[in-house]
C-alpha cells in the first residue's frame, strides 16, 4: 500500500526531534483524527538553517513530516512557502488516496511555523498565509 520511499522515511525519519528556542513553531492536526504534527524552524538571514518535527500519527504522517523538513531545509522563507503538498507526494513516490491529507498536514505545519516566525519578528504575513493560519487553528486539537 505504501511506496518504498514512504517506508524508508517512516523507518528512518529525517530531522525528528525538538529545537530549543526555535524561531517559529507550527502545531497542526487533531488527536481525534489521529495525527498531530509539531514543526520547529531556526531562521538565519531569511534562510531556514535548521528544522525539526515531532509527529504522532500513521506511517504517512511521519513520512510526510520527514520529507517536508528535507524539502525546506536550507531554503529561504520565500522558497519554503512555495512547497506544496504535490511536491511532498512526489518526493515520496506517491501516497495512497486516503493518506493525501497527511501531505496537506505536513505543508500546513511548515507554513504555520513560518507564519509564527514572521509574526514574532513583526514581519508582513502574506494574505494567503493568514487565511491558512485561521483554517488550521480552527481544526487544531491536542
Amino acid at each position, binding site marked *: 500500500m*505504501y511506496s518504498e520511499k514512504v*517506508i524508508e522515511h*517512516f*523507518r528512518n*525519519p529525517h530531522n*525528528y*526531534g525538538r529545537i530549543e528556542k526555535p524561531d517559529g513553531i507550527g*502545531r497542526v492536526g487533531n*488527536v*481525534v*483524527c*489521529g*495525527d*498531530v*504534527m*509539531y514543526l520547529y524552524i531556526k531562521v538565519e538571514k531569511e534562510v531556514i538553517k535548521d528544522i525539526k518535527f*515531532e*509527529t*504522532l*500519527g*500513521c*506511517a*504517512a*504522517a*511521519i513520512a510526510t513530516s520527514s520529507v517536508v523538513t528535507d524539502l525546506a531545509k536550507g531554503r529561504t522563507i520565500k522558497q519554503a512557502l512555495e512547497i506544496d503538498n504535490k511536491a511532498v507526494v512526489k518526493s515520496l513516490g506517491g501516497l495512497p488516496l*486516503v493518506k493525501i491529507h497527511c501531505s496537506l498536514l505536513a505543508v500546513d505545519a511548515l507554513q504555520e511555523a513560518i507564519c509564527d516566525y514572521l509574526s514574532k519578528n513583526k514581519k508582513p504575513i502574506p494574505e494567503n498565509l493568514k487565511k491558512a493560519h485561521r483554517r488550521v487553528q480552527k481544526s487544531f486539537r*491536542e
Partner: protein
Amino acid sequence: MKEIYLDYAATTPVDSRVKKAMAPFFSEKFGNTMSLHSFGQEAELALEQARKTVADLMGAKPNEIIFTGSATESNNLALKGILFAKLPIHKNQRSLIFMDGLHIIISAIEHPCIMETANWLEKQGVKITRIPVDKDGLVNPLDVEKAVTRETILVSIIHGSNEIGTIQPIEKIGAVIKSVSRKLKTKIYFHTDAVQSFGKIPIDVNKMNIDLLTASSHKMSGPKGAACLFVRKDVKIEPLLHGGGQEEGLRSSTVNLPAIIGFAKACEIAKREMKSEVRRLTKLRNKLINKVLKIPNSHLIGHQNKRLPQIVSFWFSFVEGESLALRLDLKGIAVSTGSACSSIKLEPSYVLTAIGLKPEQAHGSLRISLGRQTEESDLDYLVDNLSKIIKKLREISPFK
C-alpha cells in the same frame, strides 16, 4: 528475517491434518451431493458425516446445521431469515412492507456483518436496538431484558469479541430471553455470533439457550469458504438463496464439499485438543498481558479474565496503531490495529469507542491474537520489539 503471525483472529493457517482430510475431495471424491449416482452418494455420505461432526462440537443435532459459505452469510441468514419468516403472509406471499412492526436487539460491539445487516434492516423499517456495553465490553443481561418489547423477534449478541476478546455471559442472556419470552407468551429467538469462540472454548447450544449460532471454519485452522448456521429445530427461517434446494432448501448452492470436510476435520481436532489448547493459550496470553503492561503507559482493553484465550488487545498512549503495526511488520510480526488511520473510513473502531475509549486512545490500539503455532519465544520476540518500537515512536511523537 523472522516471520511471526499473531493475527489468528483475522484468519488461521489450515492445519496439515485438515488439508490431508480435504485432499481426496478435489479430484477423487468430487461428486455433487445432489447427484443420484455413486459419485453423488459418496459425496452426500461425506457431507452428512461432516454435519454430524460440526453439530457435535456445539451439542446440536446434525439436522440443525446449515452449511454456508462464510460467517457473513450465516449472520445475514440469521437476521434476515428469521425476520422474513415473521412477515405476514398475504395471498400466499410474504409482504415486505410490514417490516416496521418488528424489532431486533443487537449489542453495540457486533462484528460488521451483524452491524451492517442490522443497519440495512433499519433502513427497511425494522426497529433496531443496540445494547451498550460497559468499559470491559460486557453486555448486561438485564439491559437485554429491558430492551425487549412485544415486537421483538430476535436478539443477536456476539459470543467472543473479535476485537477485544471479551466473552459475553451468553448463558445468562439466553436464560433471560427464555424467561421474558415466556412472560410475553411469544418466542424471541436468540442468535449468537460465535465465530471467534467456536472451537476455542466449550459451547453447548442447549445449556446456553441458543436458538441460532454462527461458526466459521477459517478461524479454527480450517479452510476459507465454509461456515455454518445452527438453527434449532422448529425455528422458522426463510432462505436467502433460492435454487436447487440444498441444505433442506435453506441454502441453495452446490455444496462446497472439500471446504466442509476441512471444517469438520477442524472441529474434530478442536474437540480433542480444546482442553489442553485453552490451558496452553490462556497461560501464554496471561504472560503476554503481564509483559506488555510493563511498557510505560500501556493499557489492557477488554475484561481481565472473561476473555477468549487467544485474543488480547491493548492501547498505548502517545503512539498511533498503524505506525505500530507497520513497524512490527517490518520486523516480521503480523498484528492488527483499530486505529482510524488503518481503516478506509478513517474512523476509529466503533467497538473501541463503545467501551468508552476516546478516539485518540483507540488510535493507539493493537490486537494480538494467538493460535496453534504460537510459542512463548514468539511472544518474547514480540514484546521485545514492541517496547523498542513504542519507545522510538514516542521519541518522534510530540507527546511522551
